[in-house]
């Protein structure tokens, strides 16, 4: 493989990997506060993209306003979802909660189909479509947006964790729920916040990817799975691991296209998932394995 070709694969891998990273981060936040794997995570991505389309094309808002408003709306959807369906069941078995997220994903997906139809929709790229050449590989500006915004999100999240008492409280809850309770931390608020942030991260991924790959009602499940694989790859429960795992997964997947038949491209993510689980279950960054009893 030529160098420029390799570079091209890596660049496109980083782009899709950034999206996986944001989704993986969403899984991680909810997992840390509730131990639940939110199988509706991919739907937040779809809604982020599709609502932005409606606001931009339908309501005629400026692109950036449409994008921001869409993220806010999806965050609210996450909040409502938590209050209506998760909160009443928070003391029940994890499995019951996971099934609720399954129900939510079916519901979200099919409501999206009724509202936006079956065809993929799109919004324009944030800053034009003229590719930038980089050591013989071409980069579309939207890819830089995807990577840049993902990094900004990750940095902001770290600042939130390190610098604010709410962020520390959130971390405390994921480390030791009882001790957090004894500090007077209200875990119900932490759970709500984790759903809000997860929804927001999903929506960010949705508006970022919409100009590149378009968004359709049905793509949430698959994107969710890839994000989940990324989260496990990095070590489920570890936010930094989620980001590294997501991006690494994107790169590996992209590179695999150069070596194996493209039909198997999607199998790569899951093969990596299995290998990680069997060989290094704590993920490449080695977070603690814990279980709600």
């Amino acid at each position, binding site marked *: 493989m030529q160098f420029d070709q390799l570079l091209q694969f890596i660049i496109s891998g980083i782009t899709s990997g950034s999206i996986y990273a944001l989704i993986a981060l969403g899984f991680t936040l909810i997992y840390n506060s509730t131990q639940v794997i939110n199988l509706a995570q991919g739907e937040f991505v779809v809604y982020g993209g599709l609502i932005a389309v409606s606001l931009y094309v339908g309501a005629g808002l400026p692109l950036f306003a449409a994008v921001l408003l869409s993220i806010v709306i999806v965050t609210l959807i996450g909040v409502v979802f938590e209050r209506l369906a998760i909160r009443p069941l928070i003391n029940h078995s994890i499995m019951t909660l996971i099934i609720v997220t399954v129900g939510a994903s079916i519901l979200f997906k099919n409501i999206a189909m009724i509202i936006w139809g079956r065809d993929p929709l799109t919004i324009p790229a944030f800053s034009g479509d003229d590719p930038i050449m980089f050591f013989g590989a071409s980069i579309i500006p939207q890819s830089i947006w995807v990577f840049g915004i993902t990094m900004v999100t990750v940095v902001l999240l770290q600042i939130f964790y390190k610098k604010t*008492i709410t962020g520390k*409280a959130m971390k405390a809850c994921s*480390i030791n729920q009882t001790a957090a*309770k004894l*500090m*007077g931390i209200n875990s119900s608020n932490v759970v709500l916040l984790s759903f809000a942030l997860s929804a927001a991260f999903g929506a960010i991924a949705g508006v970022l990817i919409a100009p590149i790959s378009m968004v359709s009602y049905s793509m949430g499940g698959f994107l969710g799975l890839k994000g989940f694989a990324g989260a496990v790859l990095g070590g489920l429960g570890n936010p930094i691991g989620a980001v590294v795992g997501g991006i690494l997964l994107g790169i590996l997947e992209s590179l695999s296209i150069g070596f194996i038949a493209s039909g198997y491209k999607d199998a790569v993510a899951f093969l990596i998932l299995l290998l990680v689980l069997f060989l290094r279950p704590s993920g490449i960054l080695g977070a603690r394995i814990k279980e709600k009893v």
Partner: protein
Amino acid sequence: MLDIRGLKASYGHIEVLKGIDLRVDEGEIVTMIGSNGAGKSSLLKTISGVVRAGSGEITFKGRNIERWSCAKIVATGISHVPEGRQLFGPLTVFENLQLGAYTRYRRDSKKEIDEDTEFVFEMFPVLKERWKQTAGTLSGGEQQMLAIGRALMSKPQLLLLDEPSMGLAPIIIQNIFAILKDLRKKGLTLLLVEQDAMVALSIADRGYVLQNGQVVMADTSQNLLDNEDVKAIYFGHRDKAH
């Protein structure tokens, strides 16, 4: 200050507290002794709101708190140092202390909280040395100090302590108990649970003996230390061990 009447609590179908009456007056050190599973830890957890009271009353400074959330109880002035310390291992010493003051962030100024952090550091200088270290890397004694320091950060009037001596060397236990006495001089009230009845009664004013979720004896520490039954049951095994 703290008045408990007819308190019952259960885990699922197992009743762990079967009608407890207990009183702690302001400025006292009161201890609870009893064997494993007597309900000592459960009682502390019920006071701090981790375990829901089934029936009965807990009043703190005249207010019924048995239905309150943990957060509200902490904010009112009861702080609980749990069994096994329960620190936030991956977070630093300093972050652990900050979280101890969690309920005060909206109420008190940053200056007040900083002053209290300084107060804890003066009391436990080793914590100041290690403020940037993660809690998980501290020694057992240091962890216990951090757990107490963290509880003090909420500015409690009543401190609940669950087995602060567990797993520590005698010299460190002495050190910690000296600090507890010092805290009482500064006006703090303490309710102390200890496996080691001798140590506990030596610093407490009064003691309660718990058995199977019930108070079977309540008296001054001196009387309990002199009591033949208490000696036989709770100090007997010590003699055998030595």
